[in-house]
Structure formats: C-alpha cells, structure tokens
C-alpha cells in the first residue's frame, strides 16, 4: 500500500505546514501585538507617565475582576456555549456577600453605630457566601441548559434578569450601606508585598493574587487535565464526545458552575476593592468578558481558545481606559476603540483559521 499512499501523505504534509505554521504563529500573537500597539501609542504621546511601573501596577489591579470573569467565560465559550449572566451574578453575589457580612458582624444597633465587633467572622463568611451564590447561579444555568436542552444564550439571558432583579430587591436598588470598612482597608487594599522603586510605590494586593492565581490555575487545567481536554472536545463536537463516553451534560454543568463561581469571586472582589456592593456598575461586564475572550482568540463556535490569550484580551479595555484618562481624552472613546479592536481581532482570527483549516 504503500507508495501511492505515501506519496499522497507526503504531498499533503509538505504542501501545507510551512505556510500554515507561519500564519498561525504570527496570528496567535495578534492580540499581544494589538495590545503592544495601543501601549506604544499612549507611550508616544504621554511618555513615561503611561509606562511608569506605578501605572502598570494600577492597570494590573484594575483588570483583576475582568480577568476573573474572562477566565470563566473562556471555558464556557470553548464548549460552544455563552454565559450572559455573569455581570448580574457578580452584582447579586456582592450584594449577598455584603448582607451576610453585615448581619454577622454585629447586632443591628452596633452596625447602625458603625461598629463591627464580629467582623472577623462576618467578613470571611460574607465573602464565601458571595462566591457560593455565584456557584449556585452557574449550576442552575448549567442544569437548565442541559436538562431542558435550551440554548445557553437564552438560559443565561434569563438568569441575567433574575440575578439582577434579586440583587436589586435585596439591596433596595442602591449601594449596600454599612459594609465593614475593614473588608476594603484590611483585605482588598492590604499590601501583601510593597516595594518602592525609584520613588514609585508598587504593591501586590489580594485582588492581584486572586486574579492572576486563578488565571494560572485555569491555564494549567485547560492544558494539562482531562477537564480541559473534555472542555475542548465538547466544543469541537458534542455528539462525538458523547459517543466517546464523556458525560457531556455533567461537564457542561461543571463549566457553567465554574463561570458562576468566578462571577461570585469577582463579586467578592468588588467588596474588597470598593468597600460596597454597587448595583449600578457591572451590568455590561458580560459583554466585556466575551469581547476580551474573543479578542484573545476564543472561537464562539467552540473548540478553540486559550487562557493566556483571554487574559491579554482582558487587559485591552483597562489599558485603553487608563491611557485615555492619562491623555485626557474623553473616556467615552474607550467604547469606540474597544469595538474597533474587537472587530479587527476577530477578522484577523477568522482569516487565519480559513487559511489553516480545510473542513
């Protein structure tokens, strides 16, 4: 059999890779290249003000919540699903966390007097309650998607409304008052490591550790474990995965659960960073996370995506906002710029895939 098939294989093997590998190597780095260009533009106009270590440190902190959300979203999108509910789940989680924290930190009279004798219990339990709230919402998303065989777009759109509404009901539609300030001062802003370099104060705070720790673990899980392998397999071909004996439904519940859990973590981070649960912001976080993930190379059709790319994608909005503020450009330009970057990144990505894939 032999020579005919060898000749065939050789022809196929030889003809494609050189060009393909080059293409994919170049374009897998599109997102970092775009980020680099943005950074260089700001650098050119604002110089060291933008590229100072201190400012980069702030960017890392400002991106932390979006990084966490984007990690969860990336898992979901790789399975060819979508989770529109994460922004609302974040809000609900932070409201629940704040309420639990307040309830456990002292009697109503003490709280009203802004005293928190039991905050050493209230703060950790409250944060955990926020995370669990997110997990529950995510698991419900997963169960509804798989049991009712409904598109995740619809299920999570429903959850978006439900979680937001519940968060508003619980909070009375405003920011939750009387959150123990220690959650911000002693947790969120705590300087785990602080150094002064050339007169610049650099700090590593819990949000940094949480966000980039989660991203690192997620990257390892996606690349090296069976959980990651099944995530790609299901997004690539759910029917084939089922026939290969993978419990597809259970895996999807886990993936949506993970996305919800991470939204809960981001909700807890909101309290740490800002000392209050606000129902006003974060409603567009779902789209920000999806954009970040897709800009980072995740395919909405499933089967493709990396955590590294998604994290770089999550930096782009923060860097843009930060740079525009420094350059005193109206920050509304941020939305325009992110929209343009999204379209450009996905266009380049599609071209690469068409060149590479033969299906």
């Amino acid at each position: 059999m032999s020579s005919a098939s060898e000749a065939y294989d050789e022809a196929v093997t030889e003809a494609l890779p050189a060009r393909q590998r080059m293409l994919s190597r170049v374009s897998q780095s599109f997102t970092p290249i775009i980020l680099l260009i943005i950074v260089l533009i700001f650098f050119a106009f604002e110089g060291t003000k933008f590229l100072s270590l201190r400012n980069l440190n702030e960017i890392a902190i400002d991106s932390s919540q979006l990084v966490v959300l984007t990690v969860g979203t990336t898992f979901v999108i790789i399975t060819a699903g979508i989770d529109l509910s994460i922004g609302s789940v974040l809000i609900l989680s932070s409201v629940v966390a704040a309420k639990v924290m307040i309830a456990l930190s002292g009697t109503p009279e003490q709280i009203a007097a802004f005293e928190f004798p039991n905050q050493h219990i209230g703060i950790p339990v409250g944060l955990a309650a926020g995370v669990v709230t997110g997990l529950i919402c995510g698991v419900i998303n997963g169960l509804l998607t798989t049991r009712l065989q409904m598109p995740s777009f619809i299920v999570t759109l429903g959850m978006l409304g439900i979680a937001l509404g519940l968060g508003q009901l619980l909070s009375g539609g405003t920011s939750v008052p009387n959150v123990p300030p220690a959650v911000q001062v002693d947790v969120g802003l705590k300087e785990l490591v602080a150094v002064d370099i050339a007169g610049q104060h650099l700090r590593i705070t819990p949000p940094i550790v949480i966000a980039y720790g989660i991203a690192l673990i997620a990257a390892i899980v996606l690349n090296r474990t069976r959980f990651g392998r099944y995530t790609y397999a299901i997004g690539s071909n759910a029917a084939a995965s089922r026939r290969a004996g993978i419990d597809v439904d259970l895996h999807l519940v886990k993936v949506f659960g993970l996305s919800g859990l991470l939204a809960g973590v981001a909700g807890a981070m909101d309290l740490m960073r800002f000392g209050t649960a606000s129902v006003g912001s974060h409603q567009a976080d779902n789209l920000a996370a999806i954009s970040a993930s897709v800009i980072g190379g995740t395919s909405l059709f499933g089967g493709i995506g990396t955590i590294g790319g998604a994290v770089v994608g999550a930096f782009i909005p923060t860097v843009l906002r930060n740079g525009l503020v420094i350059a005193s450009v109206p920050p509304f330009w941020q939305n325009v710029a992110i929209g343009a970057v999204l379209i450009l990144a996905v266009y380049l990505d599609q071209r690469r895939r068409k060149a590479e894939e033969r299906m």
Partner: protein
Amino acid sequence: MVSTVATRAPVLEARNINKHFGPVHALKDVNLSVRPGEVLALIGDNGAGKSTLINVLTGVLPFDSGEIIFDGQPVRFSSPQDAREHGIETVYQDLAVAPHLDAVANIFLGREHRTGGLPGALGFLDNDRMRKETDEQLARLRVRVPDIERRLVTLSGGQRQGVAVARAVMWASKVVIMDEPTAALGVAQTAMVLDLVTQVRDTGIPVIFISHNMPNVFQVADRIVVLRLGEVVAELDPKTASIEDAVGAMTGSMRFARGEANQGE
C-alpha cells in the same frame, strides 16, 4: 477459512429486530450475525436502514422489539459507551471525531491515560504515554498520519477518516463496525482502510463493513447481507455472486431466497 468460520459461534447477533421512527418502519424483523474471523458486508440503497441497524446494535438507538445476542447472552446496550466497554468499536457514518483536537487526543478520547499519584487523581493527563502508544499503534496498523499532534481540522478528509478508523481498530476486542468508512476517500486512503479491515479480520475480530462501493465490498467481504426498505432481502457469497446480483437485490429488481444460513447453531 470461510468454512471454519461458519462453524464458530456468532459474537454478535440481531434477532427479529424491529425499529420504527414514527410512521417509518425502519427495520423489519432483521436477523444478522457475525462470527469471529469474517468480514460481513452490509449493503443497501440510501435509506435502507443500514445506519439504523448499526445504531441499534451499538446502543445509540433503542429498538422496539427483537433481541441482541452478544457472546451468547442477550444484551441491550444502554449507550455507545456500554457497547464499547464490551469490545465493540464503531466508525460512525457521521464521523465521530473532535476536529479541534489532535489524533492522540481523539484516539484516547474518553479513555485518557492519567499520570500517577495525586496529579493523576486531579485529572492530569499522561500525554507522553498517549503519544507513544498512538505512534506504536498507528505504525502497527500501517496508518499514516502526517503529525499526530496536529489538530484534525488541518488534515485532509482521508487522513481524518484514517484516525477514526484507527481508533476503532485499536480499541476493539470483539467486533469492529464501519459505516461507510471509505465514502470520502481517494484511492490510496481507501486501500489503507480496506487493508485495515483485512488486518482486523485476520486477528480473528469480525468486521461489519457498510459501503456503497461494490468493488470494495466484493474485495473484502466474506459474506454480503443486503438490506432493502428495512428488510434483509438477500445473503450473498461474494465468491459466487456477481455485482449485478448485489445491485439487483438492493434495488428489488431481483429476488432471492431469504437465506439466513447462520440461524441456529
């Protein structure tokens, strides 16, 4: 060889299987059996019920009445996974591979090797071992894949098919079923698949081979069963029957005695 095969007990047997899809009577009292060491070709026109029969045999679809006997025991596979655990491997017509994964990941999909110790318990994959075993098996089976770590989307249709067929052959211990494994293939890749079919047969594992390509069927089959409109209408011996006979049976222009030579031990 065929004569000794005929005396062996069937590995897998369908008895009086009926299957409806709503008003469509897709399988009518179908009887079929395969014995160790034979290639059984299943042929029939589009919509004859070949894929349905395979899906019923391998637990993809439930059936309405009848019996499936595996290794002498009545069985009802609850899922394709169940059938696989019994040593029955299938190459499905709608190619069941994950195109964004590479050949190694596809071959081991659902049966991944994990590393030892705590990392293994956490789900860490032993990619080196899977890669090595894939290399060995593909070499043994003489299946050529340009690079087993390239995602299948970047391979040709034939190469992808090669991976799907190799996976089935590699894991099967009792029966291999191939539903049109050569449909999209060129000459060289078809030759490779037919070579695999005979290799498997020669190890004693029977193959159920579905194809519309009559020369291929006559080349590899030890026995040919013809389905028409959900019924077994003929059983042919490729050594004595002609392609015209087979086509006649498929289209209904020729009638045959409904020989079920394998009924009864």
